Structures are given as C-alpha cells and as structure tokens.
C-alpha cells in the first residue's frame, strides 16, 4: 500500500515536568535531532498519568504512547514514580494481553540530564511504531473510515 | 587512510583515545618504560594526534610485557596492553621491522610447533644464535644441567603434530575478531 511508505505515526509522550520534560528541553538546547512523530504532553509527575489516558490515546488514533518520568528514587515528589512503576507494569501487561503490540506502549525513566536518552527513546519508539504501521486496535471505527477517506 | 587504520585498531583494542588526559601514570609505573623509545603515555598521545606510524614503528609495542600495571592504575581505564597487542598484529601485517622480542616469540612458537611444549634450552640457544648474543645467560648452564634443571631432550606432547596444525590454523586466522 502506498500509505505504508509515507506513514508517519502519531506518538504521544506523557512526560513529567521535572525530569523527562526537562530532559526533552535539554535535548533541544543541545540541538539533538529526533523524529517529529513524538509529541510531548507535560504533566507534573508521571504519577499523574492515568492509565485511562493511554486507552484514550489508542482509541483516538495514536500509534504509540510513551510514559516517562524521573528514575525511581529521584522523583520530585519523592514517591510518585514508584506508583507509576506499579501501575504501568500492570497496565502494560494488560494491554499486551488484550492484543496491543508491546512496541506501542513504552514506559521509561529519563532524568533531566538524560537528553540523549530522550532522543534515543524517541527515535527508537518512532522506528518501532513506524514498522508496525498504523494502529487499528482499540481505535474508534469512524476514525478509521474517516482517515481512509482522507487518504484517498 | 591512516586514521581509518588507527580507528579500527583502537576499536579492536576497545580503547577510546580521548579517554586519556595524559597524566602519565601509565609511564610512571611501566616496568619497561626505560627501554621504550615511545613511552606508554606517548602511545596514547600518538593515538590522539593520529600518528599511527610512530606507534607501529616503536619498540614499545614489542617491549610491553602485558603486566597490566598501567591499566590497573589508569584513572580512565585505558586498556593499553590491548592496544599494544593490536598494534603488534597490525605492525606484523603491515610488514614493519621485526623488533628484538619478536624473534624470541617466533622461536618460542617454532619450538611449540615441534614439541607442543616449551624446551627451555633450545629456546634460549636458538634465540641467542639468531639474536647474536651467544654468551647470554650461558654461565648458568652447567649448574642447570647438573641439577637436571634443563634437559637436552625435549618433552613432547603425544599429539605434537596436531598442535602444529592447530598453530598453523591459528596463524592463518590470526585475530579472534576477523
């Protein structure tokens, strides 16, 4: 399909304000380059990321989702990311159990200084998701037809 | 072109030349540094400025005993012995001059090809002949003969033929990574 070639996935990254968002800013400051697909949504803490956001993202047409926060032990709010860790350990397994490809959902710890890790993660996730193609699982049906129309 | 070779040399040795900040702790502790025409720190300096030839021409790479004192104390974990080793292979491949110790090493291996094990007397004797140092260490010979510390007849492994073949195979392939 010709669509495959020009497929540019939409990826949303929920990033905590103190570590990963700062790391992403630092990547910019250092003029590192990564694919345009990754869109950051700023949240105060990875603990703020309700797993239902992820479901919604897949439903509305995101092809990949990332949840990023401070490394365990470094949380600005001291324990937020420990809860994140448990929540998404369960959620990731549940999503995969329901058929979502493991590569479509990533949780990662990226500190405020790990600009390179942010870049690498963004690039890596983009690449994987690109290979997988557009996500149809969990996607609202009318969206699929709509975009198919738009594509023709 | 030189740098390509140098880069691959460094990569094989697992050494990043810019890790070194030239503190000289390697040279300071090197047992053989006095005899080296390029000191260990100098080797790293040459790697930094891209002068591969000076490394390959030096006697340093042949004199390194592999005692690992340098890397043990190096603040940046620069694996100089690995670098020296790769440099020796490259120097041999590129046909650089055989330096003193290479002769010994070759005699040693020839010895193994013949017997599978090392024959000290033959080794020392052959070496002294080839290197033209006929009298080196010969004062000890009578004592050693008397007490059975050296023997005229070499020990052979039972399968010295297979070892010879193995060594030849290894010589052909030479590097583990290639």
């Amino acid at each position, binding site marked *: 399909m010709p669509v495959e070639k020009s497929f540019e996935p*939409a990826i*949303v990254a929920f990033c905590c*304000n*103190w570590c990963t*968002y*700062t790391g*992403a*800013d630092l*990547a*910019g*400051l250092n*003029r*590192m*380059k*990564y694919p*345009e697909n990754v*869109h*950051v*949504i*700023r*949240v*105060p803490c990875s*603990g*703020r990321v*309700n797993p239902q*956001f992820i479901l*919604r*993202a897949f439903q*509305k047409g*995101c092809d990949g989702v990332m949840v990023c926060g401070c490394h365990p032990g470094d949380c*600005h*709010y*001291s*324990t*937020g990311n420990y*809860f994140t860790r448990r*929540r998404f350990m369960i959620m990731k397994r549940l999503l995969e159990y329901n058929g979502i490809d493991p590569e479509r959902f990533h949780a990662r710890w990226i500190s405020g200084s790990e600009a390179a890790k942010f*870049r690498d993660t963004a690039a890596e996730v983009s690449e994987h998701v690109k290979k997988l193609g557009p996500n149809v699982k969990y996607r609202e049906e009318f*969206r699929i037809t709509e975009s198919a129309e738009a594509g023709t | 072109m030189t740098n390509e070779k140098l880069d691959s040399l460094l990569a094989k040795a697992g050494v990043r030349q810019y890790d070194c*900040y*030239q*503190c*000289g*702790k*390697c*040279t*300071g*502790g*090197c047992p053989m*540094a*006095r005899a080296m025409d390029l*000191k260990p*720190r*100098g080797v790293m300096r040459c790697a930094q400025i891209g002068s591969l030839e000076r490394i390959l021409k030096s006697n340093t790479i042949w004199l390194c005993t592999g005692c690992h*004192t340098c890397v043990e*104390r*190096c*603040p*940046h*974990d620069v694996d100089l012995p690995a670098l020296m080793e790769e440099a020796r292979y490259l120097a041999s491949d590129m046909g650089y001059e055989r330096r003193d110790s290479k002769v010994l090493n070759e005699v040693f291996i020839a010895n193994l090809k013949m017997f599978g094990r090392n024959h000290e007397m033959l080794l020392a004797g052959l070496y002294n002949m080839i290197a033209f140092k006929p009298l080196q260490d010969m004062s000890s010979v009578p004592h050693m003969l008397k007490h059975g510390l050296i023997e005229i007849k070499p020990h052979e492994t039972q399968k010295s033929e297979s070892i010879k073949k193995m060594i030849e195979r290894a010589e052909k392939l030479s590097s583990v990574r290639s």
Partner: protein
Amino acid sequence: MSRIGVFVCHCGTNIASVVDPDKLIAAARELPGVAYAADYKYMCSEPGQQMIKDSISEHGLDRIVIASCSPRMHETTFRKMLKNTGINPYMLEIANIREQCSWVHVDKDRASEKAVNLMRMAVSKISKNEPLYAQTIPITKKALVIGGGIAGIQAALDIADAGHEVVLLERESSVGGKMAMLDKTFPTLDCSACISTPKMVDVGAHPNITLMTSCEVESVSGYIGNFEVGIKQKARYVNHDICTGCGLCETKCPVKVESEFNLGLSTRPAIYKLFPQAVPSKPIIDKENCRLLKGGKCGICAKLCPLGCVNYEDEDRTITDNFGAIVIATGYQLVDWPSMYGEYGGGRYKDILSGLQFERTVNAAGPTEGHIVRPSDGKEPETVVIVKCVGSRDPNKGKSYCSRACCMYAAKHAHQILEKLPGTRVFIFYIDVRTPGKGYEEFYDQTRMDGAVYVRGRVSKIYEEEGQLVCRGEDSLLGEQVSVKADMVILETAMEPSPGIAELTSLLGAARDVNNWVQEAHPKLRPAETQVGGVFLAGTCQGPKDIPDTVAQASAAAAKVIGLLNKSEMETSPMISAVERDKCSGCGVCVGICPYKAVTLLEIDDRHGAKRIKREVANVNSGLCQGCGACTSACRTGALDLLGFRNKQILEEVDALCL
C-alpha cells in the same frame, strides 16, 4: 464560546528558521474558539508582551495560547504579564515549539506540521482551562541551619542579623567544621583560626541564634514555611547548663584515643572538648570509649568536677521544633584514600599525610605545635613530595570531578614548607594547575618562585625503602620516568559529601547528583536552593569549593531565607488536587498514595435520600499539596482532579493530537 488568542513567537530565527509561523497562524485561525492569531519576533520582549496585552483588550480575548520556547522558560513571565490584563494568569497555555520542535527537527515541513499539532493541542487544552486562584499560607519565622561549619555559621549569622530566629544544628560537639582545622588560608595566608574563631564566638553569643551541638535531624514533615523537624540531641553526659568549661575533668581521664580533630596525629581523653577553641567551650563524654559507660569502673571525671556536671545517666532526647526555612550546610569529608590507592601504600606508610593531616601538622595549635616533622621519627623532612588529584579526576578509582580547592592548597602547603623549612626540596606532581580565583594565579607563581618544583605527571607508585618514600611517576614534560626519594609525602585528596547526606536529603525530599552532592535547583540561576520549597543550600554540601565561595553561597542562601521569612504569609501554587465531594465515595486509596500526607479523609454532613447522614470524603490540604497528581490517577471515579492538569484538559490534548 471561548475567545482564544494564539500568539506565535519567532524567537529571532530560533523558531522561525525551521517552523513556518505563517502556517501556524493559518492553522490557528481555523480552530474553533480561536478569536485572534498573530506572530512576533520575540514574544517575551517588552513590545511582544505589549502586543499580547493590546490584543486582549482589542479582541476581547479570555484565554491565551503562546507558541514559543519551553514553558519552563517563560511560563512565569507570561503569567505575570497576564496579571494586569484582567485575564486570570492560569488561562494560559504554552506550546513548546522551540526546545521540542524547531531545535530538534530539521525537515521544515514536518517540523511546521508538528508545531501546528503542538499548538492545536494547547488550544484544545485551554478550552477547558478555568481561572485558578492562589491561596496563602502562614510562615513560621524561624530558620534551621544544618551544619556548623563556616557555611552554616555564616548563613546563621546573616539570618540572625536580619532579625530572624535561627537554630544552628551541629553533629559534633562544637561548631567550626573543617575551617577550624586549617592553618592558613590561601591566597592571603591569614590564619584560619583568627578569622573563623570570632565568627564561632558570635554564633555562640548571638541572641537570635540557638546553638544545638551533638544534634542530628531525625524527622522532617511539613512544607515551605511550615516544617516540623524532629531533632535528636545525643547524650553528652555533661550538663552544659552548669558546666563552666574549666577543663578539670579532662585532666585525669585514663582513656587515650585517637583525636578526630587532629586526624589521628594525637590522642585525646574520653571526656573532651573537640578542640581548645570549641564553641560551646564545654566537654562531652565519648560513650564508645568511656571506661565507665562501657561497663568498667571509673567515674574519675565526675569526682573531679567541682560543679557536679557529669551525668553518666544522660540519654539521647528528641526535640521537635517548627521552622519556616531550612538551610543544608553539611559540608564535606576527604575521600578515604587508603582504600582507593594500594599503589600509594594503602595507608601503610606513616609519613604519607593527607592534606588535612598536614594542616594539623603545620598548625601552631596542632599536635606538633606547627613544626613540620615526620610522624614516623619526628625528623624534619629534607624532601617533600606533594601529589595532587588523589581521588579526584579519577573515575576508575575515585571521583571523576575536580575537587577544586586542591591546586591552591597544594601551592599553599608548598609555600608553608618552604617558609618554615628553607632549603627543603618540594616537588608537586600535578596533571593541571587550576587557579581561577582572585589572586590565585599570583599565589601559584609565588610558590614556584619560592622554589617548589612542579612535575607534570600523576604519581604511579609510592613505596618505602631505607626510611624514605620513593615516588615513581612520569615527568610528562620531559617524557621520562622520574623517581623522587622523599621524606614526607602529602596527598591532596578530594572532597566528597559528608556521611549521612543521603539520609538527610531523603528526609528533606531534596535530590542528590550522581556524586551524591546535594542537587541545586538550577546550576546557574538557583545555586543556593534545592528543588524542595523552603530548603536551601550553602557550602560544600553542594559540591567542592573553597572558603570564599562557601561563604558567598552561605550568604546567598541566607538572603533567600530572609526573603522568605520577611513575609508573614506566602502564596501557594493553585495547581493542586481538588476533590469533587459528590463523586468521592471515601475509599481512601488517595490517602496512602500522597507523599505529603496532604490528602486525608474528612467526615462531612450529607443527605442520603431523605436521611441526614455523615460520610467520609477525601480532603486536600492546600498547604501540603504540591500538585503532583499521583492521587488523581488512583481515583477511579475521577473525584480527585488536578487543577491546571485536569483529566479533561489532558484528554483534550490527546484528542487534538489525533485529529
């Protein structure tokens, strides 16, 4: 319908060279709710801000989206700008099209496309924004300074001089810290004790300062302006309320142990003052070594004390106090070089001293009364080798960082040796000489002219032979191996954070960097603050530094504290959790998740059908809540929501990306 204004910043060429502002403007105008869209070269500039303000009144805007640099950069700027416009400062969203778009992407079309996405996400989000109003909390006008070294002393004095109460807490039995151990200070060579002792006396006597020695922080709760700190007062076994510090008790103590203050170069009794000029100038008993406290027979000191101050029954106590601000000034210790450097003898050779041991040796009040002699035989050295960067700049065996003060104190040591023992040969092995400081390079020059020989190279091995220490290394400028036979070797060892810093920072919630130094909130712009509101930093707990920098940072931290304590109350961020009580079933899952104990269950009056009932619901303490939102993701009904980052706002962003 909301009236959203979209403003696109070029940031000079930083944004505009990659992202096409026209595309953003065109896209913005198509979006529902957008009443106005415009671009400008520098939105954050005065004219840029004016333009936004003008547009607000001209077009009747009620919420603003700015597509520009990171919100971490200018969110505060733009919020301030909105304060005088009639729009609530929280009716603002920033699309980060610089750090996360123009700077990280190359393809102009695709970068512009992404910028449009980001802008659209912000527009969608802001459609759900609501005005937020800051609350105020009272501030306890009292500061706690942890650590009684020169940093803590300076900070305490500055805060106290500004009229605020200060508790200065010190783990040892006297304030003074490392500076009290030093002999002279570079580059002016004024005597360390002469300049630090008066300050020690000042903190002891200042009406606004309460000195708490032999104390440690045990617990911390609360938040900026309202900390509650549990302090452990370790048993001193001497009643300091009565003690006059006469020193009689020390004279007959049968115990002799290595003196910590003199770093093992002399001994002290079990009842002791840390050093003669100690403040408070009163002894304590070291329970690890006291014969009686270890279960033996003694009690001599109690018999000797004319005032009956000695109390062997003394016990640790916990005192709780409230503070508005906390300063961490816990300082450093030297790395344990013997465990790192087997090649330097691993501590086997007596005549190898650490820099601090040499300070004690050369100090007139030290164990040798200032005579530079070898600990092994008491002879004056004829040749001294000074080794720099021991434990620093050595990621393999020690610390990767430069310890900053060593170059200068190495030069000072050389100078002191050459001054006290003219004719001594002094060799300084170095890798680089770093002298960035006022008068520092001149001091280094002087030391070289004094006759100190600088040898460029790191010493590879030191061993003892025939009563001398043979130092082998390379003179890398000559390219030859060198070997120096020295009578004494001084290792200028690196600083590392004081022990216990990990425990203290986790009590306070402050972060540490990879080397365990306390992390400042911003390396350049907020060097004296931690990321935790109300917790500040002074001195070497933040990283190696010399005395002038330490004192400067201490005063900076004090200024921050004074600024905070001068207010009687402060505004808190309104972006905190809020409970919709109708939805809350009081299950309490949020209570256990909140790291600040800000969420509790509250009994409220309600109706159940026709019945009046009492039921429990979650309640957020706006003073404690820091706005992390961890509770909101655990709340199944969504009764808890985070203001400014409401569920619906975030979902709008998600939806907007996928349009």
